[in-house]
């Protein structure tokens, strides 16, 4: 690996959360964000010799991410039944039309501290579903509850975390872009 490649990898890693935020905006499809970030990394590194790394990499990464997001979005949703495609298109338009820029980059670090403040049962649910990759029907079986109840519990946890992030960022002077 030459020096320029090393620098390019460092630049990407420094902007990894920024790329994820852009990916979420243009491809709100479950599980697609990481695939997009992966592809952006590969394409960014494949052409690293072309990039002037002394300049701000965000415009370049934003455009690359948007192109790749739209490409992967099309590929992923076209495999779905028509009715799901319509729902997915509707959600993508909602995401694109949102006026606020992606907040992922600012919020991810706040989220980590908010997770520590969750009640024990909520934290366990997060660990089961998000960290141990166990689906809601299986969690329901395990804790002897209905699957819909688990869905609602996860929904409440996410809402609590959203409230915590809003409170924390407000106390720190609001979002940087506001």
């Amino acid at each position, binding site marked *: *690996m030459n020096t320029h*490649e*090393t620098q390019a*990898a*460092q630049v990407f*890693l420094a902007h*990894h959360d920024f790329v994820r935020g852009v990916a*979420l905006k243009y491809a709100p499809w*479950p*599980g697609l*964000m*990481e*695939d997009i*970030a*992966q592809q952006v*990394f*590969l*394409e960014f*590194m494949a*052409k690293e010799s*072309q990039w*002037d790394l002394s300049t701000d990499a965000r*415009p370049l*990464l934003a*455009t*690359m991410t*948007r192109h790749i997001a739209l*490409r992967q979005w099309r*590929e*992923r949703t076209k495999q779905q039944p028509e*009715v*799901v495609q*319509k*729902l997915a298109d*509707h*959600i993508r338009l*909602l*995401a694109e039309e*949102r006026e606020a820029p992606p*907040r*992922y980059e600012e919020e*991810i670090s706040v*989220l*980590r501290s908010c997770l520590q403040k969750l009640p024990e049962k909520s934290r*366990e649910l*997060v*660990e089961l579903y*998000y*960290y*141990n*990759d*166990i689906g*809601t029907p*299986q969690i329901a*079986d395990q804790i002897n509850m209905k699957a819909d109840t688990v*869905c609602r519990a*996860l*929904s409440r946890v*996410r809402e609590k975390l*959203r409230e915590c992030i809003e409170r924390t960022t407000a106390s720190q002077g609001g979002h940087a872009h506001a």
Partner: protein
Amino acid sequence: MPDTDTLIQRYLEGTLTTGEAEELHALLQAHPELGERLLQHFEMDAMLRATKPLVVESMGARPALLPKRRFTFATVTSVAAMAACITLVGAWLINQTMSPQPEAEETTASVAVLTRGVNLEWDSAAVTPGTPLSPGWLRLKSGIAQIEFYQGARVLIEGPAELQLVSSGEATCTRGKLSAQVPPQAKGFRINTPKGTIVDLGTEFGVDVGAQNAEVHVFKGEVELHQPAVTMKSLKEGQAMAIAGNTAVLPANASSFASLNEIDARSAMSQRFQFEKWLASSARLNADAGLRLRFDFQDDEGSRSLRNHAVNGAQIADGSIVGASWTTGRWPGKRALEFRNVSDRVRLNIPGETKALTLAVWVRVNGLDRTFNSLFMSEGWSDRKTHWQITRDGKVRLGIAGGGGSHHVDHDTPVLFTPERFGRWTHLAVVYDPAAREVRHYVDGELLTRSALKDTTPLKIGIAELGNWNDRRSSGGVAIRLLSGAMDEFALWDRALSDEEIAVLGR
């Protein structure tokens, strides 16, 4: 039917039935506020997945449950980030060994890039340095081309030669000479010839394919020679062999193949030649009767203005540089202005009206992160003002504001700027031709698209900016339309240039 929370959860989990998808869609249409709620859950879901630690501590005995998701990039990049602290080599290797998703492989066409060229003449479609190359034939009439395969191998081909790119690690040569440098990470790189296949084991070698025979010469390391119905042969450093027929081992002859040093020297010479040719043609261009403005960007590096070199452009003053910094242009010694901050621009004034108009620029676009990315834009947007810009989706647009209550009209090209074009110098031109009642867009000297012109009222450019935009009417902030990139030549004519004239400019 499940409640809204459950529907959202199933959307996030990818387990919606078609009936549930229909229900959720109907709810979103009937209750627009639900859309924001869903997006917030979606974002939080994605962030929670990304907070997954590298090693998940066991939370006690659990039933044997199957993981619901596959291996994700989050894990890989977390590892890469740690490895970066120790050595970024690790990060690169980790990511290189990951398999991209099948759908991404289907849509990624290019396998190599033409990095340098000397006196290139093509029998196939012309390609210029910086162009990504997809699988297919390259027929080089003359000159030397340096191709870097995405797997890492670097190949020089000398015209006349025919090379078919097969993949990022394989090519077929049916005629001509090539030499290859294959770093360890590209080990296994293959060159097929009509007589046999050379498989590289991490080395440097040359192949000469003639009408009757073919030879392989090994300059460093070792290669394997595979031929139909013949035992595989191994050739080591300093050895050469005919690929078919006489199998005697001969001394390798490195001097008969182009080397990287040679292309370095010839490339530098070629660039110098092109630069001098451009300098020599400048005086003739400046004297063109219809040329009203020409910035060659060769002003002193300390200068904060761009001199208008058009002999007949006395009515247009020099441009004023705001913010933009000097950088290198198309060739060493050629200067350019880089636009990177929101303040960066060149201000100028084009007084009066113009019946016809041609604009031409050499531009290097680094990325398109804004809705509109300015090439050359009149201040404000009314009464036949002109906006030449690149849209976020990569189309080049000449927008003309309506006059006397009529609507504005946009003349767009198809998508031109994709990531494959970023970082490369591109020549763009647009012609507003009232006589032919059309607008023509050109790229690298070739006609790209033409669109009908209904309203041929003269244009009024007035105060304008290169690389940015100012809306003097705005009181609540100005939309950012900064170009992320560089320019090293800009010209404006008050006449419609022909296809032939544009072709000369774009060469």
